[in-house]
């Protein structure tokens, strides 16, 4: 089976900076794949190499089995939703959406029909005559999506497309994007620095750090079994146990992970540790306690509706043995 996109030992260097440092990645047909990482981790550069806007200094980029490493963007069967949407300001919405058809010489009537259908698909009918500047951020986002989909790409690249939207709209668009991807059954490659977005939308997530792919897996694997310390810390809240703490609580592993929500408060009997509440933060659904132990601090998430201990209170901490995840490698 050919992969929708495959990166083979891809490097991208700008002078002395290795933006992408030997990435090996295969993305299946119809997959919703997310590249997750902090800014400067190389995730956008990876996307740009798939789109053809950056060329690798070494390695190969294969799209649908074809080697398109050095092909220009207009010769690739992929389309992109840009972070700033990149709508053409001198064209109205219909002309923007139909641009990909126009450059291919599709007749005007056919263009108008397909642009209207695309705007329908992104649930934005009837705005074809407006200028992009007359639309809200969420509407522009949908126009950018319609414009990228009109050429019926096999792979859609999305470069932090939801970054500029407010939280409510972002959550709504996440659900819509996911539904759209299922309906069109095409491959989505999504770049974000937002771990919630990555976990909630993706079939698989690749976590990037300093130009390297640290781990590729399902959202659940990434969250529950992070391969490296970086992944553990970047995805979700994490208590990292090292040195003495790791020896005491994690059978002598060099480093181990204990998620705050896996720790419970309980009685003295069977408690694994005890400490003093130093601080607490209210998050609505839960309260995060900072508990001081002899040699370390632990974040502990407790339900907000129960009895939440005051700062200064003595608490007993419980967790199941499998809540501790050993982290090998130094990430």
């Amino acid at each position, binding site marked *: 089976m050919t992969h929708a996109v495959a990166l083979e030992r891809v490097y991208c260097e700008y002078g002395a900076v290795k933006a992408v440092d030997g990435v090996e990645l295969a993305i299946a047909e119809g997959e919703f794949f997310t590249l997750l990482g902090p800014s400067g981790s190389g995730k956008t550069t990876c996307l740009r190499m798939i789109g*053809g806007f950056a060329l690798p200094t070494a390695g190969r980029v294969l799209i649908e089995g074809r080697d398109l490493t050095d092909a220009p963007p207009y010769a690739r069967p992929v389309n992109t939703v*840009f972070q700033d949407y990149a*709508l*053409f300001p001198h064209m109205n919405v219909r002309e923007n959406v139909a*641009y*990909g058809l126009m450059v291919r010489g599709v007749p005007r009537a056919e263009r108008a029909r397909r642009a209207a259908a695309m705007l329908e698909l992104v649930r934005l009918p009837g705005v074809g005559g407006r200028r992009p500047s007359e639309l809200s951020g969420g509407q522009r986002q949908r126009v950018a999506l319609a*414009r990228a989909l009109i*050429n019926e790409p096999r792979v859609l690249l999305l470069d932090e497309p939801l970054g500029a939207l407010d939280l409510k709209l972002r959550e709504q668009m996440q659900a819509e994007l996911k539904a759209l991807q299922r309906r069109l059954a095409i491959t989505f490659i999504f770049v974000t620095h937002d771990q919630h977005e990555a976990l909630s939308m993706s079939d698989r997530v690749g976590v990037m750090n300093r130009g390297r792919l640290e781990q590729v897996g399902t959202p659940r694997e990434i969250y529950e079994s992070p391969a490296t310390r970086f992944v553990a810390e970047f995805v979700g809240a994490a208590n990292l146990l090292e040195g003495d703490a790791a020896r005491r609580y994690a059978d002598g592993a060099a480093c181990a992970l204990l998620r705050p929500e896996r720790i419970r408060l309980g009685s003295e009997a069977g408690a694994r540790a005890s400490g003093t509440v130093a601080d607490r933060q209210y998050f609505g659904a839960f309260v995060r306690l900072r508990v001081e132990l002899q040699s370390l601090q632990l974040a502990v998430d407790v339900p907000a509706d129960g009895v939440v201990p005051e700062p200064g209170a003595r608490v007993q901490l419980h967790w199941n043995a499998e809540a501790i995840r050993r982290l090998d490698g130094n990430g």
Partner: protein
Amino acid sequence: MTALAAAALPPVKPHPVSDFFYRRRALLVLLLLVPPLLWVGVVYVGSLLALLANSFFGLDHFSGQVVREFTLKNFAELGTGANLDVVARTVGMALAVTLACIALALPVAYYMARYASGATRAALYIAIMLPLWSSYLVRLYAWKLLLAKEGAISWVLAKLHLSWVLEALLATPVIGGHSLSFSPLGTFIVFVYLWLPFMILPIQAALERVPASLIEASSDLGARPAGTFWRVVFPLAVPGIAAGAIFTFSLTLGDYIVPGVIGDSSMFIGQVVSLQQGTAGNIPFAAALSLVPIVVIALFLWGAKRLGAFDAL
């Protein structure tokens, strides 16, 4: 906390003038606008109106005195063959210079806006602005030497065995002449040289505001570089091109020195105006002729607006 308290800043003291104007914004705006409005209104618009009025006066050819009586004789005289030739020659030159400046400025401006960074861009800015630091007359006479029959350009062409190209060009009717410095082609070259910076800078400013992602998006959607240029880059550069064209067009239309120094001694509007109001002392006719560039530029702006040149502003 204590450190912050200790370092507390003294309170900002009230200031009577600032406070007064803070509460009366309209008065401040008025005070700021009155001097420039007076200047533009009285000195500029006033002299334009004086020009307009003069163009309807006559001249007593016997005494050389301006006769302050309404007449359309000056405008009738504008319609005569020789004067129409002057107008056509000047407007044609202004159009040709403007088109050449657009063609030359676009690549430079595009390079500056999209690719040049840091030192390269600074060097290009200096290279474009530097000629403006020296006198226009000095540059004009320098070009006279370059374009002369025994000048640098014909020397270089002779060394390259390309003299025949120059001879063919000079033998061409309308643009040709005795030598580059005595031909309309020479006038054209010097005009393009003089006004090119005024075309590059506005186009560069317009292209600077075009995000790189628009060009990437066009390419992503299947457009080849030429398609991207004509469908995305050029339309977004049009406001800058229009601004630059206003400069190059009106500067060429009003110039009366360049065609006097370089060219085949056929007259441009500016030269005729200069002769009429100076040597001939026919101020009313000079005024009528001066209205021609104003009308032509008004038509030019109207046409540019009709073509949508200012839509993106």
